[in-house]
């Protein structure tokens, strides 16, 4: 506490009323000197600090030693703000803003602007994750859970961690459930088949190509390119069984096709059968009906 005195006392000197008045007047006229600056922690004793000034982004209401432009202030009514280095870093009110401030100087890289972290005291296992939930209001729910975005592990092994980005949303009033995910390998996996009336220009689980293969080589067939094909079986000229690595969902729920390139040769093709793990195509010469090896065959299966 810094209370200045008005007089220096000497040995045997007499205290007069003038001396006392001067001393107390000094205290009354400089009340702030009784509490500022603090020389120890201050306990409010359960009372509330009121009447603070609003402050500003460059001069916050509550500041820190040696950092006068970092602290808490209020930029508007019913709004609480945080300033870092004289820049608004967060604002909580009718809308909220979170900002990495002050800005950095990057040009073509991504900054980790924020981290949402939730660890566990248990033993982590596949399925563990962290997410954000989004609430709003519906006709009968306030708040109403509208959906979530999560990052979920499919493998938590040391050095082999795999995580998926998962989107959950509500359908027909049910609780939010997975509607799709971007897997750790970058594949987008729709969560549901199309409804009876699909939304145009949309991707559904059963509207995807499930496998395709490009077979060239004519009489000596070679797999040139593929997706989800484990092998082909040569059953004779123009007869191929295409085997899939991952089966389609259900027998009969998918459709296969075969296109052929062969210059002047009048090929035609048909799909003999479609199973969950394979499909068979026949390729014939249209004019004669004789089965024949195509220079190149493009075979695919959709749906399922």
């Amino acid at each position: 506490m810094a209370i200045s005195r008005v007089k220096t006392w000497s040995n045997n000197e007499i205290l007069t009323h003038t001396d006392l008045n001067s001393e107390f007047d000094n205290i009354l006229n400089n009340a702030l000197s009784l509490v500022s600056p603090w020389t120890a922690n201050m306990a409010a004793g359960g009372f509330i600090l009121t009447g603070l000034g609003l402050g500003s982004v460059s001069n916050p209401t509550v500041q820190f030693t040696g950092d006068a432009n970092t602290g808490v202030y209020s930029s508007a009514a019913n709004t609480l703000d945080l300033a870092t280095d004289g820049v608004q870093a967060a604002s909580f009110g009718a809308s909220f803003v979170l900002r990495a401030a002050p800005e950095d100087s990057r040009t073509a890289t991504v900054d980790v602007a924020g981290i949402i972290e939730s660890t566990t005291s248990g033993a982590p296992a596949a399925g563990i994750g962290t997410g954000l939930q989004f609430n709003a209001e519906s006709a009968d729910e306030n708040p109403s859970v509208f959906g979530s975005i999560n990052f979920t592990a499919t493998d938590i092994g040391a050095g082999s961690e795999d995580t998926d980005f998962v989107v959950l949303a509500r359908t027909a009033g049910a609780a939010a459930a997975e509607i799709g995910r971007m897997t750790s390998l970058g594949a987008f996996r729709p969560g549901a088949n199309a409804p009876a009336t699909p939304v145009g220009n949309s991707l559904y689980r059963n509207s995807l190509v499930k496998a395709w293969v490009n077979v060239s080589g004519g009489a000596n067939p070679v797999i040139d390119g593929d997706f989800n094909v484990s092998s082909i079986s040569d059953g004779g000229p123009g007869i191929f069984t295409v085997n899939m690595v991952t089966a389609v969902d259900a027998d009969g729920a998918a459709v296969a096709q075969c296109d052929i390139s062969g210059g002047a040769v009048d090929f035609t093709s048909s799909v003999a059968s479609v199973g969950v793990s394979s499909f068979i195509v026949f390729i014939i010469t249209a004019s004669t009906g004789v089965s024949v090896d195509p220079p190149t065959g493009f075979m695919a299966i959709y749906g399922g």
Partner: protein
Amino acid sequence: MKVRVFQPPGQQVQILILNEKLRLEGESDDDFLNRIAPGEVEKCNLVGLPFADIDKAEVYALDRSKRYAWRLDGKKVKIDNAVPEPRHPKQDSVDKINAATTLDELKAALSMHIKGK
């Protein structure tokens, strides 16, 4: 590169050609076939058939025009010359045309041939 050749009873061989993308680094042909092929035979209904693993180039060096006669013989695929050439898909039409003895019969046979009946 080897393929696994299956012998269905009384029919031409089925040749399983694995996708090379599935081969592990440094994996031998035999290991590759033994690892993948058992799962494949269930997909394309070759379960229980006798088979042999043979070099692909050796198999496909055979006369493809006689593919119908390719038969598994031990550890090799051979052409069984005793196997008759399969009937041409339009042989019935050809026979009817050849059998025609009058102009009307010939016209009828040609008409059926053109219409694909």
